[in-house]
């Protein structure tokens, strides 16, 4: 889950990382209130999960309530690369002496944590990586050893960060590492990490991606869930606990396992169709989950046919079949279903479908993935 900047800053603050005083606002009046709390001058920042806010006019300085009103009303509702601004963050403006970059991620290839640190902050790090790769210090951290202050200090020196900022940045890195590991982040990035004229080191921006698998030990993440920007189909799927991604084709897809679901998209594409979604019902799917999946697909009016591709392992074919029959009793499906069922309890599953008394034009079985894809694409074209 990607956090908005203000959420990232609130998350950083939990780990004692210095951020500016500020508050989030949904309206112009709230923005004025937050500005007064944060004290002028303030910066008004559009909260969208896309880069290039500044260039789009989504970040403005305000010295008084009138300026806050002007900027807040301009920024709220602004469209930044397809993201409509619903929230703004109002924070006390910071003096900036220098700008750095710092981030922690998991390097999957090295199977270790990776610190990236640069004295060149405030710009896109991808760009620095291309134009001046030596300006980025990469440090691998063993997850069971952690990051010591001494190691952090060496990295700061290697990055050629100003002498006067070494201790402050190193201390900040240790805190950011703590946030990254204990806070179960996939990414914890500060860009820019600033040195203020008074010598303090401070996170001026926050980019945080949380690992959804760790949600069970972070009840505090619930409030972030509430602000996630999902389309209606994705919201419904989330409620039903399904792995769903909306796409814009006409063949609704339900598969078990991420790999098979991706492969189903690929095969539909190869035979000339386009998938309406990615939907993985996961391992161990039961009748209830299958019903939920069909409800989600049915809510998408673009769907003209539904391709259910199941290869049972942990998922049992009889459960899947029961779910489909059940769903067809409960929900009036707009599109016909083509199913391909193999693996664990597939024979039982096929028997349940064959004996359910459902018309062949609404629910048809095919024995291979390619055949089923062809029929589904054909139906999507006809309807």
């Amino acid at each position, binding site marked *: 889950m990607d956090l908005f900047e203000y959420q990232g800053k609130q998350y950083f603050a939990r780990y004692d990382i210095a951020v500016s005083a500020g508050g989030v606002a949904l309206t112009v009046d709230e923005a004025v209130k937050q500005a007064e709390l944060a004290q002028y001058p303030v910066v008004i920042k559009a909260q969208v999960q896309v880069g290039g806010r500044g260039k789009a006019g989504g970040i403005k300085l305000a010295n008084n309530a009138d300026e806050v009103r002007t900027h807040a009303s301009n920024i709220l509702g602004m469209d930044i690369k397809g993201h409509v601004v619903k929230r703004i963050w109002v924070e006390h403006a910071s003096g900036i002496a220098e700008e750095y970059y710092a981030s922690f991620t998991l390097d999957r*290839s090295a*199977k270790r944590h990776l610190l990236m640190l640069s004295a060149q902050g405030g710009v896109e790090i991808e760009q620095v990586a291309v134009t001046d790769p030596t300006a980025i210090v990469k440090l691998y951290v063993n997850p*069971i050893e952690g990051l010591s202050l001494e190691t952090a200090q060496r990295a700061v020196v290697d990055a050629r960060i100003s002498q006067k900022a070494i201790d402050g940045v190193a201390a900040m890195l240790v805190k950011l590492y703590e946030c990254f590991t204990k806070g179960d982040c996939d990414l914890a990035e500060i860009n820019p990490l600033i040195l203020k004229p008074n010598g303090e080191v401070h996170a001026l921006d926050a980019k945080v991606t949380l*690992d959804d698998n*760790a949600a069970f030990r972070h009840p505090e993440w619930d409030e972030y869930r509430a602000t996630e920007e999902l389309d209606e189909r994705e919201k419904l799927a989330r409620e039903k606990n399904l792995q769903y991604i909306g796409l814009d084709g006409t063949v609704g897809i339900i598969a078990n*396992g991420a*790999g098979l679901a991706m492969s189903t998209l690929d095969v539909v594409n190869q035979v000339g169709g386009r998938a309406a979604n990615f939907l993985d019902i996961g391992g161990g799917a039961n009748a209830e989950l299958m019903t939920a999946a069909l409800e989600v697909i049915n809510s998408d009016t673009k769907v003209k046919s539904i391709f259910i591709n199941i290869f*049972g392992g942990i998922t049992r074919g009889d459960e899947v079949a029961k779910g489909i029959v059940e769903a067809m009793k409960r929900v009036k499906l707009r599109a016909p279903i083509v199913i391909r069922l193999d693996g664990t309890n597939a024979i039982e599953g096929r028997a349940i479908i064959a004996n359910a008394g459902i018309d062949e034009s609404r629910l048809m079985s095919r024995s291979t993935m390619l055949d089923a894809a062809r029929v589904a694409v054909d139906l999507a074209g006809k309807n």
Partner: protein
Amino acid sequence: MAIFVNENTKVLVQGLTGGQGRFHGLRNRDYGTQVVAGVTPGKAGQDVEGIPIYDSVDAAVAATQATASFIAVPPKAAPAAILEAARAGIGLIVCITEGVPAQDEARVFATLQRDFPKARLLGPNCPGIISPGKCNIGITAGEIAALPTKTGPNVGIVSRSGTLTYQALYELKQLNIGVSTCVGIGGDPVPGTSFVDCLAEFQSDPETHAIIMIGEIGGTAEEEAAEFITNHVTKPMSAYIAGVTAPAGKKMGHAGAIVSGGKGTAQGKMDALRNAGVMIGLNPTEACELMSQIVLAL
């Protein structure tokens, strides 16, 4: 021969008394796997259809000389279960648990590397391993796997995706091609065993004559495999990479499956493998048909 497991492998199931553990543990036994024990703290002395339950992996190993563990416990408990098995001297740990936090996986991997370098972990979030006719640990339906023949040629399978592993096994069976071993390494960001580990084993396994690899978008595991193949694998290979049509920036279910910053695309992976001499299918069926051509030419 086979890799990682054989007919002598003795398996204990951590979580045998739970729903998934019981269902798949018993199916593994029905397949002919030596499932000798179950481990559930507090349930020592009970049994699951004749399989004795112990309080700890240590106790189960002492009583049964189990050599492999099948872990089917919830995500919260999986990291501790893996380390308990390693501490008890288990050589092969197969963890099917889906949803283990990445930070836990990274710590478990580093701990195994430092303290238990001989323990091999498959997964988490993997379907397991099957050596047809010898041993099946995990959630694969054994009947979809073709038995290897004495004279060959037999194919080894290694895959990042569970269901695509079954798909490959099933397709090869339709084509009458024997399978030496099929390994599901799992789709998580920090799998205990990599493509490269499996390719190295298949390369030195005399019963394996050709190899199918099934990858997916995200990360660099396929690119690393391509480099290894170029330098170390002489057996012929075919491959399929899932996610050609996956949009960038969207996590495709697996924690690891995401195209980000232009990296980890299916195209990049297919190109790397093709350059390493691997025949690329555009869907699982095609990859298996290519394997059929490879096998006929052997």
